[in-house]
């Protein structure tokens, strides 16, 4: 039921169809029930009228003739009363319930007497089982018979098999007509709803298409009811296009303003390096420029992803290989800090992700661990199964870190201590990693247990088609 309620709440088409089909179905059902009752009443009324007319005629004969003569006359007049095997029956009882007279068609059996007392001038109709075993209809009348006008009850009965068959045929025809009409009405409702909602669905499809150049939803081709929505959406699309264009221009301007000075610096340093024969300070300057370039590239990439100007390019990538390459990159800074990196990785592991983004996330996490781990400590890297994929865990001892610091780790340019501001860290690595993880639909969580900091990235989704069967 909750599934149905959910479907109904979630779809105008489902609600319209249910109310139309349900309403029409109930209406048609009620109409056919009333029709059936009316037809039944007509059929029974005609049968009862015929029976009553015949009973009154028989009563007149019985009241004017001696019973035996009257019966002989009746059987002569209507041979149906004369022999068994016919469909008409009659019987007369005296006031004490004794049979005074019975038609020969009754054979040896008696007619079923009326179920209640019969009042004078008030015929009593009732259904009964006839002496021949068939079902029948009877009417009972009070009358006076014989010379002394003794009080008696006359019952005239008739087989009702034909009437029942007619009634059955009428029922069948009505039920078939009801089902057919309801099915046709449902079909009509489906077609009407589909046709009626088509402009709305087309509107939805166009609106889903986003904000292409030009007018996405021409209001003049929309039904009158949808025009306000089309106009509002067009205005929203226009604003979105303008905002995207502004973002694009801004990203270009920022790229130009930040990268051009870097290019100038790099060229100047390279030129000086050639003049001075590659001295170490200039080498350091090139390193600083390269770090700044990476930082700017990361920020620009992030702003473009967050503004929706770029989308991640998912492709099959071998995660174990990517991690081994990242470990090799992190090795020199780790070695400088006397930190050892230990990794427990499978031989091969294929996931679907954006190589450049994932590389940047992993590089940032590893570099952070290698540079913040205390000397002579170990950074541990492992891949483990998670609920819906794989989890990458990178752990390093972090004696200076406190639980309250964890909340700040995703913030841009946050550093644990002002004393470190002159260090190589820009306070951007983890923030960038977390933001890029968000772009990839991954969760990057930080935890601190017993002085060990753990960054976990999940779910890295394995490609089902590439899963190796376990041997």
């Amino acid at each position, binding site marked *: 039921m909750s599934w149905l309620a959910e479907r109904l709440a979630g779809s105008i088409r489902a609600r319209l169809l249910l109310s139309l089909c349900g309403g029409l179905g109930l209406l048609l059902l009620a109409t056919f029930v009333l029709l059936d009752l009316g037809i039944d009443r007509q059929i029974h009324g005609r049968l009862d009228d015929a029976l009553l007319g015949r009973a009154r005629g028989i009563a007149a004969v019985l009241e004017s003739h001696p019973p035996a003569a009257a019966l002989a006359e009746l059987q002569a007049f209507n041979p149906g009363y004369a022999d068994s095997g016919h469909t008409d029956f009659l019987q007369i009882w005296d006031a004490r319930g004794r049979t005074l007279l019975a038609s020969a068609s009754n054979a040896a059996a008696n007619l079923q007497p009326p179920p209640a007392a019969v009042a004078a001038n008030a015929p009593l109709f009732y259904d009964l089982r006839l002496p021949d075993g068939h079902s029948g209809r009877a009417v009972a009348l009070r009358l006076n018979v014989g010379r002394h006008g003794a009080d008696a009850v006359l019952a005239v009965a008739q087989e009702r098999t034909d009437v029942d068959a007619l009634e059955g045929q009428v029922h069948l025809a009505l039920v078939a007509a009801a089902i057919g009409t309801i099915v046709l009405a449902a079909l009509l409702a489906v077609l009407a709803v589909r046709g009626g909602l088509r402009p709305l669905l087309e509107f939805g499809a166009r609106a889903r298409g986003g904000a292409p150049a030009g007018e996405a939803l021409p209001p003049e081709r929309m039904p009158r009811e949808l025009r306000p929505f089309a106009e509002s959406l067009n205005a929203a699309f226009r604003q979105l296009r303008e905002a995207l264009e502004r973002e*694009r221009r801004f*990203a*270009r301007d920022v*790229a*130009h303003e*930040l*990268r*051009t000075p*870097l*290019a*100038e*610096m*790099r*060229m*100047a340093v*390279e*030129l000086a390096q*050639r003049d001075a024969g590659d001295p170490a300070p200039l080498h350091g300057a090139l390193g600083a*420029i390269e770090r700044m*370039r990476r930082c700017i590239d990361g920020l*620009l990439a992030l702003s473009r992803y967050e503004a929706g100007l770029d989308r991640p*390019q*998912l*492709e*099959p*990538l*071998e995660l174990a*290989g990517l991690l081994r390459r990242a470990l090799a990159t992190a090795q020199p800074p780790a070695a400088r800090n006397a930190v050892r990196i230990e990794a427990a990785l499978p031989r*091969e592991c*294929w996931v*679907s992700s*954006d*190589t*450049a983004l994932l590389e940047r996330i992993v590089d940032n996490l590893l570099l952070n661990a290698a540079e913040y781990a205390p000397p002579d400590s170990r950074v541990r890297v492992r891949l483990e199964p998670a609920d819906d994929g794989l989890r990458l865990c990178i752990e390093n001892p972090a004696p200076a870190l406190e639980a309250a610091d964890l909340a700040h780790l995703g913030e841009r340019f946050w550093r644990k201590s002002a004393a470190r501001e002159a260090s190589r860290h820009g306070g951007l690595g983890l923030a960038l990693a977390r933001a890029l993880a968000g772009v990839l639909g991954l969760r990057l969580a930080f935890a601190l247990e017993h002085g060990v900091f753990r960054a976990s990235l999940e779910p890295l989704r394995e*490609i089902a*088609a*590439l899963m*190796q069967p376990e041997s």
Partner: protein
Amino acid sequence: MRLLIVEDSPTLGPDLRTALARDGHAVDLAADGEEALRYLAAYRYDVVTLDLMLPRLDGWAVLRRLQGREGGTRVLVLSARDQVEDRVEALNLGADDYLVKPFAYAELAARLHALARRGDAPAPRLQAGPLVLEPHARLARVGEAALPLSPKEYALLEALMSQRGKVLSRAALFESIYDARSEASDKVIEVLMSTLRGKLAQAGLPELIETRRGFGYVVAG
């Protein structure tokens, strides 16, 4: 080699001129697009390095003026703009190469030499109907529109396009685009092929890559 540097940065331009001159090249420096066109009208250059965001006349306008010009001058765009659309536009306007700032001087020098060596030969590009691949810029486009491919999808398409008419097995394709060895190589190529074909179909090229069952894939020659 005779070079023209079109660069408005008052430090980068002169530094580039100095570095290239020291490497033995004849170098002129233009600080805006109009000055660049004057130099180009007066002298014949082997290669022009062209910034895009220039005062007075920007880099795109310079490229437009150079379109259809005789003389075999190669153009290397040197810009801070790194977006695909910028590269596509510059290449569509006749640029031969595109390098994003900041760059390593050694890379710039190597690209300039490669362009000069090419001489009058047409730019190396791979084409199949409306699909064009620019290997030096790692760009794929259908007509004038960029085809958004992931790096591996691009590499797969380039591998097939560079050997048009030749059936390449999945193992061969895997080896050409991944540096790892893998037991899953066949399936990786299948997954990549499926997404690549989806993107090609969206661009109106559903039949570009044919499957030769039991042998591999081919772009018909």
